[in-house]
């Protein structure tokens, strides 16, 4: 799924820029991300002499686990996810923090002047986007009176959360773009300034997995948005003959792609901001907005105007 997202991303960005994008590998270039991944697996792995070898080799695997595990908690083809339980939202929050922490460690372990700067920027960016992101997620959780993703999804049978708390959705998407390091927030891996940021010293298999993890993270981030705000796999009944899993899957996919497209378009249409400006944006604008949104939702619940299902 990660590969498909990458392919869609590149095609959309290309068309918006007046180009065509990947074309040759597979029909319409759909196999291009897979080809890139395989190629990287075959390349030689160069470890910088100053780097901490254990972390350098071990951490990418840890990083890969985070979004992968989180996907287990998202309901896709049914209303219950593959491995859901009552507090899985907390586990997801933990895994998000864990992922960012692993990246920081990764980045610092490859001790070159570019990555050191990248680590600084990364940590700063993480600290900035973390709060609005968590607030947005928590707003959805509080409204649905549940700490499990399944609970949040089922509570949206009446009305999708995005209509109740549109600002939380907006904040979540922006914070997601910061987490995934997509423009305008691709500061820690700013290609034209610090070579590739924290990705600089990685090559071969490690790089292949880091890139794959980023793509999977992209899918997961969008999937979480869909579950928390867009009602997951729920939707009007398609027809008596359509089996439930297929229907759920179809709706989920459509919404997932919609969120994905939103991010693709935003990312292509904007320039990169400086780390100081990004921090300003998050602390001065997004955090207050998400706090206000949370307050609003609480007030509305208390006042009995909005009732959770």
């Amino acid at each position, binding site marked *: 799924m990660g590969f498909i997202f990458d392919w869609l991303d590149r095609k959309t*960005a290309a068309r918006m820029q007046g*180009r065509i994008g990947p074309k040759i590998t597979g029909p319409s270039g759909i196999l291009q991300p897979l080809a890139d991944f395989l190629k990287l697996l075959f390349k030689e792995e160069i470890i910088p002499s100053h780097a901490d070898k254990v972390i350098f080799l071990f951490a990418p695997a840890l990083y890969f686990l985070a979004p992968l595990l989180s996907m287990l908690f998202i309901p896709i083809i049914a209303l219950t996810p593959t491995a859901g339980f009552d507090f899985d939202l907390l586990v997801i929050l933990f895994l998000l923090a864990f992922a960012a922490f692993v990246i920081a460690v990764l980045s610092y372990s490859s001790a070159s002047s570019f990555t050191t700067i990248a680590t600084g920027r990364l940590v700063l960016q993480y600290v900035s986007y973390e709060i609005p992101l968590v607030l947005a997620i928590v707003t959805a959780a509080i409204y649905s009176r549940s700490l499990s993703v399944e609970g949040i999804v089922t509570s949206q049978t009446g009305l999708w959360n995005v209509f109740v708390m549109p600002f939380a959705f907006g904040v979540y998407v922006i914070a997601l773009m910061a987490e995934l390091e997509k423009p305008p927030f691709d*500061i820690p891996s*700013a290609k*034209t300034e*610090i070579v590739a940021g924290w990705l600089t010293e990685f090559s071969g298999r490690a790089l292949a997995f880091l890139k794959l993890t980023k793509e999977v993270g992209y899918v997961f981030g969008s999937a979480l948005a869909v579950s928390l705000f867009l009602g997951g796999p729920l939707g009007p009944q398609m027809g008596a003959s359509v089996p439930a899993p297929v229907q759920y899957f179809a709706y989920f996919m459509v919404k997932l792609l919609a969120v994905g497209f939103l991010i693709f378009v935003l990312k292509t249409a904007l*320039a990169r901001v*400086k780390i100081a*400006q990004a921090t300003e944006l998050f602390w001065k604008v997004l955090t207050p907005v998400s706090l206000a949104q949370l307050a609003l939702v609480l007030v509305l619940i208390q006042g009995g105007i909005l009732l959770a299902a």
Partner: protein
Amino acid sequence: MSAEPIQPKQREESAGLMKYSAENLVPFGPIHPALKEPEYFKLILEGERIVQVIPRIGYVHRGLEKAAETRPWVQNMYMFERTCGICSFVHSLAYGQAVEGLTIYEVPRRAKFIRLIIAEMERIHSHLLWVGLMGHWAGFETLFMWVWRDREVVLDLVEAISGNRIHKSMNAFVGVRRDMPEGMEDRIVERMKFLVDRARYYKEIIDTEETMLERTEKVGKLSQDTAEKLCVVGPMARYVGLQKDVRLNDPYAAYDEVPFDIIIRNEADVHALLQLRLDELVASANMISYAVQHLPDGPIRVKIPPIIPAGEHSTHCEAPRGEIFYYVKSGGGRTPERVKVRTPTLANLPAALEILKGQTIADVPIVLTAIDPCFGCMDRMSFLDTETNRQWTWSGEELRQYGINHYFPERAKK
């Protein structure tokens, strides 16, 4: 070269470097995604703020001035064209004008107009390239792609006129080599209108796109005093409010006959530079339309013998990057005795280093590109002693003496 220098002027350019530890030093270049051409900039940082920049140039030094001394006059014209891809025509124009100044021949009027047209087209192509690059360094890939697509318009026109997109080889002694093809006038005028519209659209984007504004406003500030002291040229001078434009101050080719506006900006930041270059683009497009519609008839070239009379002459032209200066000395033979080239990037580079102090790393590619660097044009040779981190350059006399010492040890002066 590890020989003993003979009384060189040893300037301690790296003095004070020792107090900074290796952690604060970020090497920018010579190979870096942000640089089109290799030059080495040692950035000394405190956090993300740059404290000092120490350049080391010479990575693309090709010895063109020396090579010119062994080649016939006409061959040099094509060689100097290849100093740079983006300002190639202006190089050959300046060289041509310098040599023509040594002869008794006048450039025909039609040739002057055609020279102006091609020079302005080159300016448009260069400015479009630059605007695209600014987008690229700011992370704004889409702007880069769109602008370069519009640049194809100009390149196609140039190809229709001269046969080549970049190295146009239009200049000759005395005049231009090829004439304007039939029916080009209407096509040029129409394409210029298109480009003016696109330039206006890009100006709007630069003025309103938030992320772009954040990257370019208040970045790259230079005070007018510093600019004057550092002798900046071209758009770098005009964006701090100095009225420096060779086309205005000392017209060459047909610039005294074609009306144009000089563009000056006073808010000295990169955003102003963007606006300035796009305005210049519009002015160039208008100039081209005017010149094409008022193209005089007549010959385009006067053929001259291959021996240029003795003497020395110098000219300067306004390249897209600034003032380009050529000095030519002839001994009356088939090859020049000395050609000296001073390109605008060399004049603007110290200004760039000055601007960089106090900026952050994120601004480095933007500021370095703001001067519109063309290191291929600029390079000079300098010496570096890596153990003591000392840099120095030799004068011409020292270089000559070194050569004598090397080949004729018995004549060596100690």
